[in-house]
């Protein structure tokens, strides 16, 4: 599943990038993130209680950041596993700024497995987009602080 999108944040790029790579900020922005701890280098482990509406699942996830080129680019790699199955994805984040507005363009590949894949195919993409939207809205608020 290819995921692609652009979100515009009313905040300067430096602040957005800093927020995007700050584990404490991330913990607050990732929907359903219950904990996010640094493991080593740019690798974090997280406990996510992710879901949409009545549909929820708990995931143990690792989040890794790579190809860091502040403040314009990095690569995010997420792998999660839980009772409803697993999810993994990686995406390139590119940040550009114009007139005080930072555009984050992301392109990535994501896949799900287990129950999520076999019963959820009609909603997985919409759910991913929705969670991305929530994440970036929260991030905007953080970057505006």
């Amino acid at each position, binding site marked *: 599943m290819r995921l692609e999108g652009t979100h515009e944040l009313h905040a300067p790029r430096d602040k957005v990038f800093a927020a995007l790579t700050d584990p404490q900020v991330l913990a607050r922005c990732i929907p359903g993130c219950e904990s996010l701890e640094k493991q080593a280098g740019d690798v974090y482990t997280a406990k996510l209680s992710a879901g*949409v*509406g*009545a*549909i*929820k*699942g708990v995931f143990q996830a690792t989040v890794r950041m790579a190809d860091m080129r502040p403040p314009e680019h990095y690569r995010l790699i997420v792998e999660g596993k839980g*009772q*409803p199955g697993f999810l993994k994805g990686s995406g390139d984040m590119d940040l550009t700024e114009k007139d005080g507005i930072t555009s984050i363009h992301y392109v990535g590949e994501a896949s799900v497995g287990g*129950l999520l894949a076999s*019963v*959820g*195919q*009609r*909603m997985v*993409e*919409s*759910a991913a*987009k*929705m969670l991305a*939207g929530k994440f970036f809205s929260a991030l905007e608020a953080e970057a505006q602080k």
Partner: protein
Amino acid sequence: MIPTPFDYIAAKSLDEAVALLGKHGEAAKILAGGHSLVPAMKLRLAQPQVLIDISRIKDLAYIREEGNSLRVGAMTTHYALESSKRVRVVSPLLAECAAAIGDVQVRNRGTIGGSVVHADPAADWPAAMIALRVEMVCAGAKGERVIKADDFFVDLLTTAIAPGEVLREIRIPLSQGRTGQSYKKVRHPASGFAVVGVAVNLGLDAAGKCANASIGVTGAAAKAFRAGGAEAALTGKPPDAAVAAAAAAKAADRQDMNSDLYASAEYRRHLVEVTARRAVLAAVGAAK
């Protein structure tokens, strides 16, 4: 296909249901007809610890007219709406939409309130709710509040109902004058859900021009939406085939389409246009 353990409480009154929701918080879910929640629980995709069953509360299933509106209790079944002679006369779109849901067994058990609150992106009701400009009356610990259909469907499986609130009633404003309504859908061959569903509610003036149009679309995107572009293209014009086609072409404007195994986003966008055109023409035909 076995749910995780949960407690079950049959609420005897709406107040009790609201109180129980307040007590158990996020651990609790309201059980209405159970046609979305229970399958999700059996797959363990939903794992509520407490189920508050509101199906035994008296006075949550009713259809009655009050002034210029129709009041439908949240626990009214699809079948009750489909089979009500009065609904067919005063709000034919409600009856038509109800009849398009699932199969007889589903319609006998599933409720309008349960369906709209679950907000499945492919459910039929949301399109009709938007087209009919209904109001959702929600009961909460601090009393009731009213949410308009356009504000109600927020996102995928997400509504404007706040934690602790229970949908009590749906109020449907009854159209006056020459009105025509229709619901058309492309059925998913497996689930019976709407691959695309379009509900049209329009009024004609004395000259036969479209005085007002209200169009809801479901199945196509992450949530049901109002086809504002199509409505604008109809309003003030004689709704002939060409106008209907031009309006339908705008029905999916500025919307991201869903994509799944059955229908790509591109095909869905096309189906919105075809279905909207058919629904508009059917509604015009129904307007006497």
